C-alpha cells in the first residue's frame, strides 16, 4: 500500500530534482527501498534508484508504470484502453504533473486515507498529496515540467498503449496484425475501461503489465526527454509488430514510419531492419531488440538520429550487446518476482500491527542509518554517471543480488525452511561426530551366525547379520578360544579371534559384563605378548565401559593405566588421574603399588622402582617390562656418575632388578659399560666418560 505512495512521492521529487539529483532525493529513494524492505517491489525500487538523476519526464512514467505493474496480475484484462478512460486532469495540473504521475499521485492519498482508517498512522510529512510537495521542489521543474508535460502527454499515452499491446501480444498472442493499441487509442469511450475507475483504489491504478518493458533499466542513464522515451517505446511497438508479423519486420516498420516521420530517419529504419534480419534465433532477436532499444534511446536523447550515418553504423553483435539480465526475467516471469497488488496485500493481511510497528521503528532508525543509505546511494550514482560499461556491470551485479533477494521471498514456508536449515546446521556442525556412537546404539538386529571361530575382517559397510554371532554364541566362543589358546599358544590366532568377538559385540551394541570380560581377557593377553597397541585399544574401551558402571577388574586396569602413562611420560595425565582416585581405589593394593611405582619413577629412585617391579601384581610386570629397559639405562647412568672408583656387577644386578647376573652383564655390555679387569665390577670413571 505504502509502496505506491512512496514511489509516487519519490517520483515527484525525482522529476523535480532534474538532472542534478540531490543527495536528499537519493536518500529518499534509498529509504523507499528500505521501507519496502523485502517486499516484492524491491527490484523496482532498485531500478528506480538507478534512474535517479538520469531521467526526468520519462521517469515519471516509469514510476507510474512500476506502480501499476505491481498490481498487474489483477488488471491485465481490464487494462485495455483504461488510460483513455481516466479522467484527464485539468490542463493546469499538467503544468505541475506529468500525465500519469499527476493522476496517480492525486489518487494515492485516497488510499492512504483508507489505510488511516485501519489504524495506520502516518506521520504528517507523508499525508500531503504530491502537489504541495511538488511545489517545494526546484523551480526549474515547473518550467521544464510545463513544457515537458505538454509535450509528453499524448505521446506518453500512446506509448503506454503500445506497451500494453506489445505485452498482450507477447502473452496472449493475438493474431491480428493490426495494432490493437491504436484501435484502442482511437476509442476512448470503451465501456470496459470504465470499471477500473469506479473501483476505488487498486483496480484503478491497475495497469498494463506491459509497462515492465519500460522498466527504468531499459533506459540509459543519460538525461533524456520524454519524447525520447516515447520513441524508444515506439521501437518496442515496432518490434512487437515484427514478432506478430512473423519476421516481416520491414512491413511493421513501414507502418510505423508513417506515425512519426520526424523522429525516424529512413536510414535508421533500414538499419533496424538489417539488425533484425541478421538474427537467426529468437534469442538473438531478443538481444538485438534489447540492444537497439538502449542504443536508440541514447541517440534520440542526444538528438543525433539525423547526424549518424546509419548505413555505416555497426550492427548489433555479441560484442556490443549489453545483456542486462532483463531478458530472462521477461521471458519467464517468476511468481516470486511478481509484485503484490494492493488487494492481495490486504487479503494476506500479514499483520497490520506488525507493519505499522515496523514502520515506526524504522522511522526512528532512519536517522541512524541515513548516513549509510546516503553513502550507498552516492556510490550508485557515481557508477551511473561514469562510464556506461562500468554502470552495466554494476547493474548486472545488482540484478543478481535482486534475484537472490527475490528468491528469498519466493512462496513457501519460510519459517519451516529456516528452522529446518538451522536444525540441519546443528547436526552438521556439532553433532557430526556422533554418528559412530549413534550407529552403535542403533544396531538392534541380532546376528544369526553360530560359528565359534571367525576370521577378523575390518568392516567397511553395515554388517551382515548372517555373519554376526549373537551374545549366546559369543559366550561359548570365548570359552572355546580360551581353551584352545591354552594348548595352541598362538597369540596371533587368539588376537584375531578376540578381535572378531569384539567386533560382533560392537556391531550389536552389546555393552555388558561379557564385553568387559572379552576386553579384559584380550588386554591381558596383549600384555603378556607385549602388544602395546592392542592393549591400549582394550584399555581405552575398558575405561569407557567402567565409567558406564559395568563391573570388572577396575582397580587392576587402573593400575595398568598408571603404568601405561608412565610409559608414555604423561605427567599431566598422571596428575589428573590422581584426581579420579577415590579413597577406596587408593587403598587397593594394585593401585597403591602403582602409585608407589609412579613416585619412584618420578624421583628416579631406581632402588624402589625395581623393588616394586619385582613385586608387581597381576600382569603389571609385563607392562613394566615395556619401559624397564629405559629406566635401567637412566639408573645406570646415575650409578656410574656417582660411584668411584667402581661398583660391583652384583650390586647393579640387584639394584636394577635383574633375575640373573648374566642378564645384567649383557645389559651392561649393550649399554657400553666398561668392566674392570677382574670382570666383577664396572669401572665407573671410564664408563661415565664413555657414556
Amino acid at each position, binding site marked *: 500500500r505504502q509502496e505506491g505512495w512512496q514511489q509516487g512521492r519519490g517520483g515527484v521529487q525525482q522529476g523535480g530534482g532534474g538532472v542534478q539529483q540531490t543527495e536528499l532525493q537519493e536518500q529518499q529513494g534509498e529509504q523507499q527501498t528500505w521501507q519496502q524492505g523485502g517486499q516484492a517491489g524491491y527490484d523496482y525500487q532498485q531500478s528506480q534508484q538507478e534512474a535517479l538523476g538520469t531521467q526526468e519526464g520519462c521517469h515519471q512514467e516509469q514510476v507510474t508504470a512500476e506502480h501499476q505493474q505491481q498490481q498487474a496480475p489483477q488488471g491485465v484484462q481490464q487494462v485495455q484502453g483504461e488510460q483513455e478512460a481516466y479522467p484527464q486532469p485539468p490542463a493546469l495540473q499538467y503544468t505541475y504533473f506529468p500525465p500519469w504521475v499527476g493522476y496517480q499521485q492525486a489518487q494515492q492519498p485516497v488510499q492512504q486515507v483508507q489505510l488511516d482508517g485501519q489504524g495506520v498512522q502516518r506521520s504528517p510529512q507523508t499525508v500531503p498529496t504530491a502537489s504541495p510537495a511538488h511545489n517545494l521542489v526546484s523551480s526549474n521543474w515547473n518550467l521544464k515540467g510545463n513544457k515537458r508535460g505538454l509535450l509528453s502527454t499524448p505521446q506518453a499515452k500512446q506509448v503506454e498503449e503500445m506497451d500494453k499491446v506489445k505485452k498482450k501480444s507477447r502473452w496472449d498472442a493475438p493474431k491480428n496484425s493490426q495494432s490493437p493499441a491504436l484501435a484502442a487509442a482511437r476509442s476512448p469511450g470503451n465501456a470496459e475501461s470504465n470499471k477500473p475507475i469506479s473501483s476505488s483504489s487498486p483496480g484503478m491504478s491497475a495497469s498494463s503489465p506491459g509497462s515492465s518493458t519500460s522498466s527504468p533499466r531499459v533506459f540509459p542513464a543519460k538525461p533524456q526527454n520524454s519524447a525520447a522515451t516515447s520513441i524508444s517505446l515506439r521501437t518496442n511497438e515496432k518490434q512487437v509488430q515484427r514478432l506478430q508479423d512473423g519476421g516481416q519486420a520491414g512491413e511493421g516498420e513501414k507502418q510505423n514510419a508513417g506515425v512519426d516521420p520526424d523522429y525516424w530517419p529512413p536510414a535508421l529504419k533500414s538499419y533496424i531492419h538489417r539488425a533484425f534480419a541478421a538474427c537467426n534465433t529468437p534469442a538473438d532477436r531478443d538481444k538485438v531488440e534489447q540492444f537497439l532499444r538502449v542504443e536508440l534511446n541514447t541517440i534520440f536523447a542526444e538528438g543525433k538520429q539525423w547526424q549518424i550515418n546509419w548505413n555505416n553504423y555497426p550492427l548489433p553483435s555479441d560484442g556490443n550487446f549489453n545483456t542486462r539480465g532483463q531478458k530472462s526475467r521477461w521471458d519467464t516471469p517468476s511468481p516470486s518476482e511478481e509484485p503484490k497488488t494492493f488487494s492481495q496485500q490486504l487479503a494476506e493481511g500479514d499483520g497490520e500491527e506488525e507493519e505499522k510497528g515496523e514502520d515506526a*521503528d524504522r522511522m526512528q532508525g532512519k536517522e541512524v542509518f541515513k548516513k549509510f543509505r546516503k553513502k550507498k546511494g552516492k556510490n550508485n550514482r557515481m557508477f551511473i554517471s561514469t562510464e556506461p560499461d562500468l554502470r552495466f556491470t554494476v547493474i548486472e551485479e545488482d540484478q543478481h543480488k535482486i534475484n537472490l533477494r527475490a528468491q528469498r521471498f519466493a512462496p513457501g514456508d519460510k519459517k519451516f525452511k529456516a*528452522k529446518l536449515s*538451522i536444525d540441519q546446521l*546443528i547436526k552438521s556442525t*556439532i553433532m557430526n561426530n556422533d554418528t559412530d*556412537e549413534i550407529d552403535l546404539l542403533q544396531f538392534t538386529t541380532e546376528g544369526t551366525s553360530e560359528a565359534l571361530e571367525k576370521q577378523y575382517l575390518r568392516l567397511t559397510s553395515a554388517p551382515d547379520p548372517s555373519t554376526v554371532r549373537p551374545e549366546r554364541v559369543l559366550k561359548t566362543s570365548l570359552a572355546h578360544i580360551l581353551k584352545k589358546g591354552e594348548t595352541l599358544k598362538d597369540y596371533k590366532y587368539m588376537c584375531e579371534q578376540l578381535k572378531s568377538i569384539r567386533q560382533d559385540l560392537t556391531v550389536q551394541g552389546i555393552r555388558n559384563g561379557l564385553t568387559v570380560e572379552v576386553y579384559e581377557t584380550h588386554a591381558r593377553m596383549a600384555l603378556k605378548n607385549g602388544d602395546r597397541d592392542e592393549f591400549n585399544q582394550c584399555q581405552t574401551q575398558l575405561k569407557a565401559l567402567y*565409567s558406564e558402571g559395568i563391573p570388572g577388574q577396575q582397580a587392576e586396569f587402573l593400575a595398568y593405566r598408571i603404568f601405561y602413562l608412565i610409559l608414555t611420560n604423561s605427567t*599431566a595425565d598422571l596428575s589428573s588421574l*590422581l584426581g579420579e582416585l577415590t579413597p577406596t581405589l587408593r587403598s587397593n593394593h594394585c593401585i597403591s603399588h602403582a602409585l608407589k611405582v609412579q613416585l619412584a619413577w618420578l624421583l628416579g629412585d631406581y632402588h624402589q622402582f625395581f623393588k616394586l617391579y619385582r613385586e608387581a601384581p597381576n600382569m603389571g610386570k609385563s607392562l613394566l617390562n615395556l619401559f624397564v629397559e629405559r629406566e635401567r639405562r637412566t639408573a645406570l647412568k646415575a650409578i656410574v656418575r656417582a*660411584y668411584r672408583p667402581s661398583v660391583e656387577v652384583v650390586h647393579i644386578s640387584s639394584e636394577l632388578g635383574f633375575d640373573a647376573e648374566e642378564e645384567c652383564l649383557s645389559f651392561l655390555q649393550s649399554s657400553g659399560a666398561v668392566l674392570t679387569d677382574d670382570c666383577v665390577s664396572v669401572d665407573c670413571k671410564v664408563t661415565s666418560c664413555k657414556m
Partner: protein
Amino acid sequence: RHYFGVLENVTCLAVLILMSLQALVSFQHLHIHNQKLWVDFEGQCQKFLENPYDEMIAAHIRCAMAVSNGDMMEAYACQGVVTQSFLKAFQAQKEENWAIPVLKRVVSDLRQFALKAEASLVRSKSRRKPGEMLEKAADLIMSCFRVCVSDSRTALEVSKRVGTPTLVNQLFKIYFKINTLHLCKPLVRAIDGSDIKDHFTKAQFVTYKYFVGKKDMFDSDFKAAAESLEFAFNCCYISSQRNKRLILIYLIPVKMLLGYMPKPELLKKYDLLEFEDVRRAVSQGNLLLLSQTLRKHEAFFIRFGIYLILQKLKIISYRNLFKKVYVLLGGTHQLPLRAFEDALKFMKVEDIDIDEVQCIVANLIDKNYIRGYISHQHQKVVVSKQVPFPSVATLFK
C-alpha cells in the same frame, strides 16, 4: 525488530559492525533477555540478512532461547552453528580483518557453552564420553585457527593472522581442560613461526605465556616454565588478583624446584598458605613435614595438577637434609652412608635401607646437588672440599 534493524545495517556496514556485531552476538549484551526477539526470528533473519549472517543470527537467538530454558546442550549446539556460519562469512572476507573482535566473542562463547554443556552432561549422567563437547568445540576453533594462520600473505594490518593469539588462548584453555597437552605443541610452533608473536596484546601474551609455562612444567622443562610463568606474573594486570594467584600456583613449585623459595608474605598476599609448609619443609629438608603437608593439601594440589611436581621437591629436601648431616658431622668430607640412613629414618621415610640411601645419594650426585662420589667399598660418601653442596639456584643458571 529494532534488533534486526540494527543487525541488517550492521552486517553491511564495516564501520559500525565492529562494536555492534560483537555486542549483538555476544551473551553479555542486554538483548539476550529480550523475549520479543523470539517471535519468528528465523523468518526475520532470512528477511533482513544475507547468508550466512541469517544463519548466524538465527542460531544465536535460538541459543539465547536455549540458555533461558536451561538447555545447555542446545545452546552449545546453536553456538556451534553461530561459529560455523561466522567462519563462513569470515573466510569470505579477503584482505580484511575487521571481524576479529566478533571472532573473539563468538569463540569465547562457544567454549563457555561447551563447558556448560559438559557440566550438564555430567549431571544427567549421559553415556557420552567426558570431554566430548569440549573436543568438538576445539575442533571448530581449530578450523577458525587454520583460517587465520593460513592468511599469511596479507599485510598484518588487514590479515586474519591478528586473530591467532585469541584463538590459541581459547584452544589452550580447552586442551588443558581435557588434558590433551600434546595438541598444544603445534600451536606453539605455529605462533613461534609467525610474525604474529610480536603482535600479541599484553593481555593475550600473559594468557599465552601462562599456558606455555604450564605446558613446559608438565614437560619437566622447569627453566623454560619459570621464564614463561614469571613473565606472565610480572605482566599480569595488577588488579587481576585471581589470575596472579593462578599463575603463582604453578610458578611457586617450579621456582622451588629451581632453588628459589617463596617469601611468606607472597603466600599470604595471594592466599596460598598451602605452600607455606611445603616451603618450610623443603628448605629445612624436613621430609616428614613435606609428606605430611602434601597429604594434608592433597586435594588442592591435585586439583591444580601440581601434586606430582611437588613430589619432586623431595629431591631438594634430600639435598637439604644431607647438607644438615654434613654440617652436623663437623664438615668432614667422608660421610658414612649410615648417617644418611639414620637421618632418613628420623624423618620416617618408608622402606629405608642402605641400598636405598645409596640410590638417593647417587641421584643427588648425578644431578649435581652433591659434589662428590660414593665409595661402595667403604660405604661412604666422599664430598668435595670446595663446594660439597652447591646452591640449587646456581645449578640452573
